[in-house]
């Protein structure tokens, strides 16, 4: 069962993208197109422009770039900030998430939390969680997501080895179901799945 049944073409396309931050041109003439089933890893050293690119692709940054971007499908973006409210419990954080793409039943939420290893932590105030657990609350949204396109900025930050493996597994199954994933990471991925790579180099070329 494909999640992109309605849209058999591209999930994201951008062409001739040029991005300037501050005084610096990060890259120019970048073309990206994503098809269902694709996993794209954006690489580049610190400050190469990965985060900036993802924010432009997600539609969060709307100035300072040139080029055409089409986003035919809804997308899920996870950035450096975790969007986890410290005063809410993980359960509430997911059930009342401001990313309004779905209405989750409580059982779905608990199942998702269990999948990211937070079973037993559903009702602890989130500020009592460790750094990795905190991020896991946010990553649990991936298990609940209906969006075909995922844009993930360093999703493995603070996640332990088992967690990274299970995330990689999740990306593969999402891609196999017809979704697409764009992610940035400084760690090499160890998934058994064909990976597209995009290398951003400081200086502007790809």
């Amino acid at each position, binding site marked *: 069962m494909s999640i992109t049944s309605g849209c058999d073409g591209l999930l994201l396309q951008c062409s001739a993208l040029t991005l300037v931050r501050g005084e610096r041109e990060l890259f120019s003439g970048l073309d990206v197109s994503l098809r269902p089933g694709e996993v794209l890893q954006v690489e580049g050293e610190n400050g190469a422009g990965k985060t900036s690119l993802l924010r432009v692709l997600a539609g969060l940054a709307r100035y300072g770039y040139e080029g055409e971007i089409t986003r035919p499908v809804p997308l899920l973006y996870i950035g450096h900030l975790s969007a*986890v409210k410290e005063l809410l419990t993980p359960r509430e954080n997911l059930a*009342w998430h401001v*990313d309004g793409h779905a*209405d989750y039943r409580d059982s779905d939420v608990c199942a998702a939390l269990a999948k990211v290893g937070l079973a037993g932590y559903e009702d602890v105030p989130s500020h009592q969680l460790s750094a990795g657990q905190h991020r896991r609350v946010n990553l649990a949204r991936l298990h609940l997501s209906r969006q075909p396109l995922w844009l993930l900025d360093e999703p493995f930050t603070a996640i332990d080895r088992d967690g990274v493996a299970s995330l990689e597994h999740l990306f593969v199954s999402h891609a196999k179901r017809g979704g697409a994933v764009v992610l940035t990471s400084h760690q090499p991925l160890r998934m058994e799945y064909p990976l597209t790579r995009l290398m951003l180099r400081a200086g502007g070329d790809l």
Partner: protein
Amino acid sequence: MTETTAPGAVSFCLRLLRRQLTLAIRRPVAVGNPLLFFAMVVALFPLGIGPAPETLAGFAPGILWIVALLSNLLSADGIFRSDFDDGSLEQLLLAPQPLYLSVLAYVAAHWLVTGVLLALVSPLFAAMLDLPVVAWPSLAAGLFLGSGVMSLVGGIGAALTVGLRRGGMLISLLILPFYMPVLIFGTATVQAALDGAPVQPFLALLGSMLCLSIALAPLAISAGLRISVDA
């Protein structure tokens, strides 16, 4: 993959409202604070300007309204602050529901835990400042409507400034003039009640200001938020 559908705009809005109210209640101080702040500032005035009842009663409408305005102004910055800081705001902008309604939910939550609450307890403070009983209902009604306007206008300021690391003074300068009419009509309402004049015209004015801001402010707030997240 869970087979759920995106919630409708209104139910999403209610969810947001519930979330914001829960957040407020988790910080009881945040709810209690405008009230305590109110109480304490009301206590400051007799200390500052002398305890004579007749002076105080004369000042009461002005003092109560100014303090209400201040406590609204001061808490307005928080409407979007924590959601900006922890990244929830970016997520809200990506939600498929119309931002117009979502920001209305945020502002409504702010209004409920500051303005409405203040309006409800205002008779207590009115009593402490010797305001005659006849003026209590119009004070409360005026605060109820006026604080709605102030929350909406404050929301605009908050949306424009939430992303700025520096600056923002300009914005509060810009916002303040919009508070002035509210203050003027608000105190006029109480004064009319004290003088035995009809208060309906003033309340109607405040009400129409509220309607106007409900219609327009969310547009400005949405635009402000998009700019702030980008900056």
